[in-house]
């Protein structure tokens, strides 16, 4: 090591010395944390490839299989073909939102974070905002890529893609909003669970096993609408319905109800996560 640091460094090279950090500064710090690791683009790339690939597989199958349940004769009927991302890939914005918090606990960088900004609700708020923004980008990229794939396959097969029709546009924009909300829920889940491995396993168990089972169960018990009150089900309704909604026989609920239910989940988990984040003892 050199000894040149022995002299007192001057303040000359420092950036603005505002007396108190703004929320904007903290958001910028959280964004920097996200973009100085590879996780964000690896997850984004995986999400886009999975969404577009599954869309290609399902739409191609729907167009060519002799007994496919998918129909492409109207804008309403084509919506499930466009909505595969919101049915299957919402786990990615949920995951990146969770990682924004659990990575800090996992690596113990939470200490440096809270030393830089001791006002914990400001840190949490910045993480929620970055979670929302990142999830929006994830949603827009995956929904956009899948929509292009679906439209190209439909056009190539001589069908109308209905891409500019109201129901499809409503489904696509609804899907992006749903994905965005999942980012905020992810941040809350991260603050509530803290342990990265437990959070990842928990997310996969709940979204891929527990909730689908409960939705099928609700459907079998004659109350398929109950499945729409679960977060994944609500998200799919808010996105305009998916093949999962159709499989659970829970179609017909208004998009607004889906948004309301999912937003309630976001607010409640967000508040609980904030409380836990504020009370955490960094021992």
């Amino acid at each position: 090591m050199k000894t040149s640091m022995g002299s007192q460094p001057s303040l000359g090279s420092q950036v603005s010395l505002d007396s108190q950090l703004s929320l904007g500064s903290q958001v910028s710090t959280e964004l920097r944390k996200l973009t100085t690791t590879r996780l964000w683009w690896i997850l984004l790339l995986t999400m886009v490839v999975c969404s577009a690939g599954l869309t290609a597989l399902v739409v191609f199958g729907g167009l060519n299989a002799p007994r496919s349940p998918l129909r492409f004769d109207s804008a309403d009927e084509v919506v499930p073909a466009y909505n595969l991302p919101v049915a299957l890939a919402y786990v990615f914005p949920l995951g990146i939102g969770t990682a924004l918090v659990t990575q800090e606990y996992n690596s113990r960088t939470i200490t440096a974070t809270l030393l830089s900004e001791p006002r914990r609700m400001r840190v949490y708020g910045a993480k929620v905002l970055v979670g929302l923004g990142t999830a929006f980008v994830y949603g827009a990229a995956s929904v956009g890529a899948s929509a292009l794939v679906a439209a190209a396959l439909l056009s190539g097969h001589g069908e109308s893609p209905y891409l500019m029709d109201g129901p499809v546009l409503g489904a696509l924009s609804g899907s992006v909003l749903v994905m965005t909300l999942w980012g905020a829920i992810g941040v809350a889940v991260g603050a509530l669970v803290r342990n990265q491995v437990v959070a990842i396993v928990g997310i996969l168990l709940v979204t891929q096993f527990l909730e689908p089972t409960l939705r099928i169960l609700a459907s079998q018990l004659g109350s398929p609408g109950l499945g729409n009150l679960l977060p994944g089900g609500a998200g799919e309704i808010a996105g305009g319905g998916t093949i999962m909604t159709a499989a659970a026989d829970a179609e017909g609920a208004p998009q607004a109800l889906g948004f309301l239910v999912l937003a309630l989940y976001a607010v409640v988990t967000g508040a609980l996560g904030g409380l836990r984040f504020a009370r955490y003892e960094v021992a």
Partner: protein
Amino acid sequence: MKQVEEEKYVISVRGLTKEFQGTRAVDSVSFDVARGRITGFLGPNGAGKTTTLRMLLGLIRPTEGTARFWGRPYGELPTPTRRVGVGLDGGAFLGGRTGRGHLRCYARAAGCGPERIARLLADVGLEGAADRPVSGYSTGMKQRLSLATALLGDPELLILDEPSNGLDPEGMLWLRRFLRSYAAGGGTVLLSSHLLGEMEQIVDDVLLMHHGRLLCAQPLSGLLETDERLESAFMRLTQAGIGGRA
């Protein structure tokens, strides 16, 4: 009078206590850290040093007592990392992030630009490794990155927890010289360590912790008897039962 004390003492701790499930990890600790001095916060592992530091910095809630920096709790300092540089958790980095990336994450809050980051990296000898992931760093390199993080905001107070862990003899010598020069320039240092022999060569004032209690708080010169080493003084104090548990 209070104003004078605030000017003389950078940190004032009064009756700081922490109980974990009925066990007193820190028991009514009070001390002051004087401006421009290197204060060694010393004691064996498990003495309660790190818990005390974490209470000081608002990372854990004290069961009782207060800790103030220039008369205010840490959490009420505006832009705290521009006045207080902290090196806790010498290995607390995200493995996939580069050394420079780590500094950039905390630079904004500390009011530090890219030029100063580059200079700090060079000063702690990490220039060549700055753009490699921290997962490949040795313990000593992580200590140096931790120190660079603490220095981001050009602080007037440094709080370092076991900074010599993992440093080679050359690194130890460099750290000693750096801290001396930092204090000579008006900076204040609170340094925790269990390495009494090493600290004897660095510190001006001593806070000795044992079993969660403060055994003594005084200048090193006043603590040591003729030709006595710090380790011997520590043994003398613990065997005398000062600060032992009731």
